[in-house]
């Protein structure tokens, strides 16, 4: 890292004030994060105290009887996100490898720009498209062959009405592809050209150079990119809420409606009539917050190992 303004004490009042103001502004970020954690914990406390850790594996969600358990939501969040990753990772890595290793030079710049633009499409627009285009497509094109092939397994059993875990996973995949592709692309760009040249110099084909030199060098960064995508999928709200069906069910079948933590917050937060109901929703929010913070922290450390300290992915907002 380049030496910026050297940090040492100076007698100049203006300098001290300037450093003080900037430090104060910068301190707001960690304080904000502490405040979010604190507020969520305090508001979730009544529910946490009453239900204890069993909140995480109880599958009843009954506002009338005041019994709350988040298992179906946690299950739905994790399964839909994993399903999204399963579809998105090959596509995103393919796109990133193509853009950095194989694409003709004139294509790289506009294609990179396009990927970044796509990451700016609002979630609710994906949701709208999911409801009116994706679900009919799934119903007519994707589900009949899936049922014919795998209908005997529990994963594709039951009648497909549209809003389902499958629709949620597919829309998540579409949403996180540009994100994983953009971060992986930056990671691959950070791999020194000498790695490729050394492999090619030893007689490797283009693909062998990518597979044996470039990808291993960027491995931790790519894993980080995938985890960033996973974190994003876990917290994704609007698109998933519109297509996943929003039912507190635990079903192995991808064709059945499901629920996610974020979707539950979106749907039920303004309808929570009792203190305990609200507190249970805050507990859901706290779980979601803690999980995404842990995943993002790990992902950042991994990405930083390759592309040291840079705001990798910042352009893929």
């Amino acid at each position, binding site marked *: 890292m380049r030496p910026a303004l050297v940090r040492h004490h*100076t007698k100049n009042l203006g300098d001290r004030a300037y450093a003080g103001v900037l430090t104060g502004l910068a301190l707001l970020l960690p304080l904000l994060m502490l405040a979010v954690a604190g507020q969520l914990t305090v508001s979730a406390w009544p529910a946490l105290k009453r239900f204890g850790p069993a909140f995480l594996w109880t599958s009843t969600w009954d506002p009338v009887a005041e019994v709350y358990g988040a298992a179906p939501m946690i299950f739905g969040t994790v399964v839909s996100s994993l399903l999204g990753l399963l579809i998105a990772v090959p596509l995103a890595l393919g796109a990133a490898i193509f853009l950095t290793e194989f694409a003709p030079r004139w294509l790289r710049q506009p294609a990179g720009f396009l990927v970044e633009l796509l990451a700016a499409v609002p979630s609710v*627009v994906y949701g709208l*498209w999911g409801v009116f285009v994706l679900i009919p497509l799934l119903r007519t094109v994707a589900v009949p062959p899936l049922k014919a092939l795998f209908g005997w397994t529990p994963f594709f059993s039951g009648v497909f009405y549209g809003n389902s875990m499958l629709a949620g996973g597919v829309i998540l995949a579409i949403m996180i592809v540009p994100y994983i*592709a953009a971060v992986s692309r930056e990671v691959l760009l950070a791999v020194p050209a000498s790695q490729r040249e050394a492999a090619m110099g030893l007689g490797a*084909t283009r693909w062998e150079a990518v597979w044996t030199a470039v990808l291993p060098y960027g491995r931790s960064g790519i894993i980080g990119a995938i985890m960033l995508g996973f974190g994003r999928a876990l917290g994704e*709200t609007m698109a998933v809420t519109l297509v996943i069906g929003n039912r507190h069910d635990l079903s192995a079948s991808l064709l059945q409606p499901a629920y996610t933590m*974020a979707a539950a917050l979106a749907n039920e937060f303004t309808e929570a009539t009792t203190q305990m109901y609200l507190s249970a929703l805050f507990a859901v*929010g706290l779980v979601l917050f803690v999980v995404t913070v842990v995943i993002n922290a790990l992902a*950042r450390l991994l990405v930083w190992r390759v592309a040291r300290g840079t705001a990798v992915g910042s352009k893929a907002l």
Partner: protein
Amino acid sequence: MTARAIRRRAKSAVMTGLVVGLALLAVLPLLLIFGDLIHKGATSIDWNFFVKSPVPAGETGGGVANAIVGTGIIVALACLAGIPIGVGSGLFLAEYGNGRLGWLVRFVADVMNGTPSIVVGIFAWTLLVRPVGHFSALAGGAALAILMIPMLARTTEEMVRLVPNSLREAALALGYPRWRTSLAVVARTAMGGIVTGALVAVARIAGETAPLLFTALGNLNFSTAVGHPMQTLSLQIYVYATGPFDEWHRLAWAAALVLMGLVLFVAIAARWVTRERYGVR
């Protein structure tokens, strides 16, 4: 050529083809989305759409003037708080951020960037809605500001770090105090990049829905009062998409096209600001 060499070349060609195929497949759904947006949205937009407020359910016509104005107001509120804090944090990271505090702030900014926006929404609710007892555009603006700050901090830092150190040294050698060097020379040189960062952040928050659900809430009438519920395009799309009427679905597509156009316009403007200096990156 030995059989082994042929096999290796063939494998390279096949894998290259596979990668190209995957890349095309990755872009396909996004082309479909844009196609549908333009096709279904454009046929629904007319002049009334921009100048009228929504009509009661069941009637045809009406527009989203209230949502367009509301989006503008809430985004402006977010910028008012988010830009000074975000840019200030970014300047801190670039100028004084090599120590332990810098590492912490950088790390927290990156982690906050990945925090679900709905969580930020309920946080803003506890701070600005629960104490006063009603929803407000102000709370929505605050939620969006919280989303902006970490993004802006990181892009500002990156842009300020691109300024050559020789500029700093020249100003210091001329006897400028550090704070004036930082503001009048360094930050000013990086201004284009900082503006780009701010516009990209605006493009992202303008489409946010989840953090506004229980802060700005939405409003069927035209309103510019920041202390009260306010409509945005994103909330309007959500309401129309979940409603039962075909007329609503038509309006949802139109609103989505307008929102998308707005976001793209800001994102392209962001690129245009820095087209020369950082055009390569």
